[in-house]
């Protein structure tokens, strides 16, 4: 129905050191549709983060390629959320959320207004002058999201961005952030260890094999939501079935 925004074909990547090479990805192929929320799960150490680093252009593929279909044939902007919020303690929240704009010399009045509006929309109004340590875990995560969104990326890469939060905060923050990303119409690729997170947040779950990673199974997720609450996805009737199917796939892989 919608167009592809990203196509990964026969991607391979290895890490090298003097004691030998470690293949992280081998012949990995998948596509991501525009506006889709894709979750990638896999055994630990299977090279999930490597995929994101390759998409973000922090690493270059050894074999295969990544094709982007941005607007007007341009490469779409990519935002990357890391495992921790990495807000800089020596900057206040405003200076933190505008870090990307500052680096790219895009601190125009228009962009400032946009960031101010995001702070307001995401419940951080009045915190611009505060230090990161004065914010709660959830607020810090939202500030990190604003920092990423400030550069108006079309694709968001989420590398277990909620793993450092405690469980309770994690449930609400992950649902909250997924809602923000959907509302903004962004494409997102989420890497996670947490199957319930993958099922409840995404449109499609990719299960990767052990290292070197390739796509082992794929589950489109269709949930019937009982209500509009943050945790609605986890109450959906289909939730447990998806969870068990993915669990099954992963368990086979771990044996």
């Amino acid at each position, binding site marked *: 129905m919608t167009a592809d925004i990203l196509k990964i074909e026969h991607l391979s990547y290895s890490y090298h050191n003097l004691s030998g090479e470690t293949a992280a990805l081998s012949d990995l192929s998948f596509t991501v549709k525009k506006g889709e929320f894709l979750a990638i799960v896999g055994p630990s150490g299977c090279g999930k983060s490597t995929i994101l680093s390759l998409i*973000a252009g*922090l690493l270059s593929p050894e074999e295969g390629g990544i094709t982007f279909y941005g607007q007007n044939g341009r490469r779409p902007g990519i*935002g*990357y959320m*890391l*495992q*921790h919020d*990495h807000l*800089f*303690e*020596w*900057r206040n929240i405003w200076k933190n959320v505008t*870090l*990307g704009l*500052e*680096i*790219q010399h895009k601190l125009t009045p228009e962009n400032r207004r946009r960031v101010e509006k995001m702070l307001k929309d995401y419940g951080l109004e009045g915190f611009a002058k505060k*230090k990161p*340590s*004065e*914010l*709660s875990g959830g607020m810090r995560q939202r500030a990190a999201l604003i*920092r990423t969104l400030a*550069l108006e990326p079309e694709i968001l890469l989420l590398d277990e961005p909620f793993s450092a939060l405690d469980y309770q905060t994690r449930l609400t923050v992950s649902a909250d952030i997924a809602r923000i990303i959907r509302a903004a119409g962004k494409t997102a690729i989420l890497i996670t260890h947490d199957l319930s997170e993958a099922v409840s947040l995404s449109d499609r779950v990719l299960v990767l094999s052990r290292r070197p990673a390739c796509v082992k199974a794929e589950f489109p997720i269709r949930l019937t939501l009982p209500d509009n609450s943050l945790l609605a996805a986890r109450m959906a009737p289909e939730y447990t079935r998806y969870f068990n199917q993915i669990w099954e796939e992963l368990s086979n892989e771990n044996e």
Partner: protein
Amino acid sequence: MKTNEQTSMAQPVSAAQLAYMQSHRRHHRFIRYARLTVLLCFLGLWETCADRDLIDSFFFSSPSRVAACFLSMVRDKSLFSHIGVTLLETVVSFLLVSLLSLVFATLLWYSRKLSEILEPYLVVLNSLPKSALAPLLIVWLGTGIKTIIVAGISVALFGAIISLYTSFLQADSEKQKLVYTLGGTRRDTFFKVVLPSCVPAILSNMKVNIGLALVGVIIGEFLAARQGLGYLILYGSQVFQLNMLITSILILCAIAMLLYQIIQGVEHYYKKKI
């Protein structure tokens, strides 16, 4: 971690909190008085021993003789130029060490090749006793303020470069990755992450530098000066004016303390701001 200050201000302070704060203050008051007592006991013992001829006051001087010597040197104003010269030389060496170590550590951080090539040389220069260089400096630069400043720099510089470079390397690599994901360059990672995160390390490095610069300056003054506290100490020993010698040493103590306190003050201010 969150907004503790606000809650504690709004609520009335509990009895237990008051007791805790009181015991905290009592502890600090005790330390302050104990320090003062140690100093007074030392001076008292010294004075008494000299008075009763238990020690030879010609060699060991005494607090009253030191005070008299200090006052006479203040009166004939010779002391101020000596203190001024030593202070000037120390501050100039310190500033140059701070600047040069920052520049060199940055270059080493930028180029891994350069840092690997230069590593053994830095290690050698750092462990070499710099007093061995002083005679060479005199031949090259003559006797005077230039030689002394270079001596001051030479003592502190190499250690400062190594320790700054090490702290640059320890800057959070994930935060640097973040800068790359925001489209930054290596230059951005340095100015946005490495340098700001190393400010505490730079300040504590400065505390070491100021002490070492003073060491270097005094070594320089021993060998190549007509002015300064180092010169005064050496001259005092040569003419057996031990009152003058000990007075100079005590002034040196005061200067070392003062310079250290200034940097600690800056550090304190920075920590409060952050």
